[in-house]
């Protein structure tokens, strides 16, 4: 079982100091279906998350979910996730999420998902997040 300690972060110093915490992913269902990952970001200066890559998925996008007055929800791609200086931005179920598509293999519970996040400031951060169950609702707290 991968303990929370697997949430390793190697922040590489760059123009902006971006802190990433509470990263986690949901195991995918069916190799062909997209997986979701969530995390919390905080930048010490105005920045934007502009790209995410991972070796296990061909394509990763930040998606937002909007629910209108009639209760109908639709996803929308967020090209650049704004990180206003000092503000904590959280991606959580029911709201924003990282959508991983074209997975090379099913994302299995109990494994670790490596992600590389690229920011407009030039910062590039590699993280590994634990893969929880497909219906998990939040990061595991110690």
């Amino acid at each position, binding site marked *: 079982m991968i303990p929370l300690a697997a949430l390793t972060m190697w922040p590489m110093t760059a123009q902006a100091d971006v802190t990433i915490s509470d990263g986690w992913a949901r195991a995918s269902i069916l190799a062909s*279906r997209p997986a979701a990952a969530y995390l919390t970001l905080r930048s010490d200066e105005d920045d934007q998350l502009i790209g995410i890559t991972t070796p296990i998925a061909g394509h990763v996008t930040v998606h937002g979910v909007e629910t209108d007055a009639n209760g109908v929800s639709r996803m929308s791609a967020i090209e650049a996730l704004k990180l206003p200086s000092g503000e904590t931005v959280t991606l959580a179920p029911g709201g924003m999420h990282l959508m991983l598509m074209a997975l090379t293999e099913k994302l299995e519970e109990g494994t670790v998902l490596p992600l590389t996040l690229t920011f407009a400031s030039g910062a590039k951060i590699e993280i590994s997040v634990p893969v929880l169950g497909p*219906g998990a609702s939040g990061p595991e707290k110690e």
Partner: protein
Amino acid sequence: MPTEPHETPPKSQLLRSILWAAAFTALAGVAIYSGLEMYLGNGSKNVRYSGEAAIRSEFSLTDHTGQDVTQADYSDRWQMVFFGFTNCPDICPTTLAYMASVIDLLGDDAVKVAPIFITVDPERDTVPVMAEYVSVFHPRLIGLTGTEVQVAEAATNFRTWYERTEDDSAPDGYFMAHGGYVYLMRPDGAFEAVYQEGGQPPEVLAQDILEKL
């Protein structure tokens, strides 16, 4: 003998009486009509169905074991129904996991409730796909799919809305926008209540259901 200047001849008098009678009847008619309209109008407003009361569990679909089913197959149980699709990585797993928690919280009474997941994307969500998908969340979760027409009919009966939206950033270039409600239906298919996953913790919904059973 002086003649009355405006003495009306008998024939015109009769005509005038008829005209007055007609006018009176017309006025009375209008009065009665509007009176009835007001009375009945108000009455019919009271019995007019709200959007929710019109929701009915009525469908002809195929379950995840490949069996053709209708709402009659679940008429011995209450139904907890959610519309979604398997290429939905966020809301659908969240809601189905929530429904699974609720089922578990019902304990021995869980057999009295059928948790049902109906796909709005039958093109990709075939029977084998649904089978694998529902098995992940709960052994008792039922997955329903069918033809586009059957799914549309079911959605109409539940008064739920969905739409295919083209989006290059989505798998296969499209995703389905859909309502996120969980419908609680009585065994006879009548509407009981509607919930949103984020509206109450599973314990509260389970308690709600136990009180109704």
